[in-house]
């Protein structure tokens, strides 16, 4: 056992994960990479080779050389509408392939269909987010090997550095041609950006594109070029459009969320970053979207233009782009129909890969240029450490997403949350598990006001400068914690055993925390 830099006891060896001695979290920017990048197998598809087009998923699995014990990867751009993970794993099971490592960029509720394959041993290990029923299964000890959780930037880092080697990448392709050129912009299963699939295409030993919209060669525009793609399979459907994109995203009218958003917006306005050229990421949650709405008003009032909006893009951001309040959008994932339409037609709406978005080990990810990010969390503690992975009862139910990366990159990282969800406090003395360390979290915003990390005295001063209508109600962290505790009453500890069922990596590949099996 050894204590890492956020005070967590990490065993020196974790069964099914490996030694952690040189892999303890030591600080947000402590680990420096050495050596060369990893790479996939060199392939040569010459002019005399047969075409890439295969008749079905089973044929593609056979051609890829996938065997028991290998690692398969998937992207999550089809979100809760995805059919591809299920189709591929079903086929593997039918073909007698077992002990696979599943390496998705994220899993959704729809993927509960693979639970029987976990129980039967087709899937032995998951490296990626586990949500809903799969998370519950894992938390209760339903997998022998611990789940490894990585951020959106930590995942491509793990691939590029060789921590994870992908044997076969299966890429759901809303549009593809016979040469394996891929785009997410068009087709009945259009999802807009396919940023999470890029690194897998570049680094896997074998890449299979699965499409329900095969178009004449060459398609245009192309997101992932066919030079990375070994095989193309046409299927009837890769997903359910209703689960892939939501309709138009609307800003909440829930008064509590609006109040929190208003306070967050006041904090941003009082900060030194609120000026021409500001950049921000707000995602698709209710509170962050409302912050965007308030910021829009403030930007118009002060005649300010933002340089770019980053991350998962919604129709609300597209509206800001069209109205000239934001100059560019850098889109790794398009959340709704308006975003899908925009990325297909507007050159200022730029598609970026997960590597480009958030990888700490390249020559500068987009998050490094970010001024402000609004995030959520299950809980935050008095050291400002944030937990987004485990729920109040200790179950591992959420992926890390871009939380770590944007928090590390942005100049102002805001966690905006109601102080209590029901009786459960969102501010505690010690989070159950640490996803993101307090050293990269600048402020917590609740319905009681704005709580600034004491290491950001500059922000505290800036907020105190704001007067009258722009005044920012400041609440010290100790007072916020006391208030939460008074309302909720004392919490009993999570009932858990010793066995580790999940390893939470910081974006640089060090272990920031572990998750134990529920008792």
């Amino acid at each position, binding site marked *: 056992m050894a204590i890492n830099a956020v005070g967590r006891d990490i065993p020196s060896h974790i069964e099914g994960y490996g030694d952690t001695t040189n892999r303890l979290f030591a600080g947000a920017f402590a680990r420096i990479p050495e050596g060369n990048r990893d790479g996939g197998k060199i392939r040569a598809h010459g002019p005399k080779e047969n075409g890439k087009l295969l008749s079905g998923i089973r044929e593609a699995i056979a051609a890829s050389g996938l065997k028991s014990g290998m690692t398969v990867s998937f992207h999550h751009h089809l979100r809760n509408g995805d059919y591809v993970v299920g189709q591929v794993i079903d086929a593997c099971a039918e073909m007698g392939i077992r002990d696979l490592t599943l390496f998705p960029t994220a899993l959704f509720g729809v993927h509960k269909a693979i639970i029987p394959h976990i129980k039967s041993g087709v899937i032995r290990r998951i490296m990626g987010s586990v949500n809903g029923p799969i998370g519950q299964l894992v938390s209760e000890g339903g997998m022998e090997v611990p789940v490894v959780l990585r951020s959106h930037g930590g995942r491509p880092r793990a691939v590029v550095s060789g921590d994870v080697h992908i044997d076969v990448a299966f890429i759901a392709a809303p549009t593809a041609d016979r040469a394996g050129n891929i785009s997410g912009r068009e087709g009945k299963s259009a999802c807009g950006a396919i940023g999470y699939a890029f690194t897998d295409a570049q680094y896997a030993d074998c890449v299979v594109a699965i499409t329900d919209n095969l178009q004449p060669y060459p398609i245009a525009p192309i997101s992932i070029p066919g030079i990375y793609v070994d095989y193309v399979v046409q299927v009837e459907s890769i997903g359910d459009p209703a689960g892939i994109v939501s309709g138009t995203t609307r800003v909440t009218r829930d008064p509590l969320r609006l109040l929190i958003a208003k306070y967050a917006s006041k904090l941003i306005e009082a900060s030194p970053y609120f000026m021409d050229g500001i950049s921000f990421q707000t995602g698709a949650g209710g509170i962050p979207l409302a912050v965007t709405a308030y910021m829009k008003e403030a930007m118009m009032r002060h005649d300010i233009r933002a340089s770019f909006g980053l991350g998962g893009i919604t129709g609300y951001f597209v509206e800001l782009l069209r109205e000239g309040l934001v100059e560019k959008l850098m889109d790794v994932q398009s959340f709704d129909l308006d975003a899908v339409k925009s990325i297909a037609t507007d050159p200022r709406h730029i598609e970026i890969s997960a590597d480009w978005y958030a990888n700490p080990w390249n020559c500068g990810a987009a998050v490094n240029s970010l001024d402000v990010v609004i995030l959520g969390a299950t809980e935050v503690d008095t050291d400002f450490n944030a937990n987004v992975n485990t729920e*109040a009862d200790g179950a591992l139910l959420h992926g890390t997403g871009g939380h770590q990366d944007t928090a590390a990159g942005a100049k102002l990282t805001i966690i905006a949350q109601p102080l209590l969800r*029901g009786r459960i406090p969102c501010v505690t003395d010690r989070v159950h598990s640490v996803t993101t360390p307090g050293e990269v979290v600048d402020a917590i915003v609740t319905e009681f006001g704005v709580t600034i990390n004491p290491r950001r005295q500059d922000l505290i001063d800036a907020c105190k400068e704001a007067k009258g209508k722009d005044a920012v109600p400041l609440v010290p962290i100790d007072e916020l914690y006391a208030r939460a505790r008074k*309302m909720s009453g004392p919490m*009993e500890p*999570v009932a858990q055993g010793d066995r580790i069922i999940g390893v939470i990596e910081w974006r640089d590949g060090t272990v920031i925390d572990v998750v134990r099996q529920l008792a």
Partner: protein
Amino acid sequence: MNEPATTHVAQAGTLESMDCLVSITGAGARAIEISGSSAARFKGAIEKKIGEVLDTLSAKPVKVTVQDNGAIDVVLGARVEAAYRRFERGPSA
């Protein structure tokens, strides 16, 4: 020896957010059953509050069932008292 024939169930509260639904029925000894979002981390606190409210009302032995959706103590206490008073008024109430 004879149990009173108070087999009816009285309820108070809702399943809305930050509320709870409390059901009370006659029993040989005081019993408490809790389910819902707070149960994992607040079972002891919930039991304590229910006990306090019933003691204040000098309640006879009852079984209290709480379906919780995030009620804080003040709300829980009000629901238990309301349910108990309804229980006391009898099945016609």
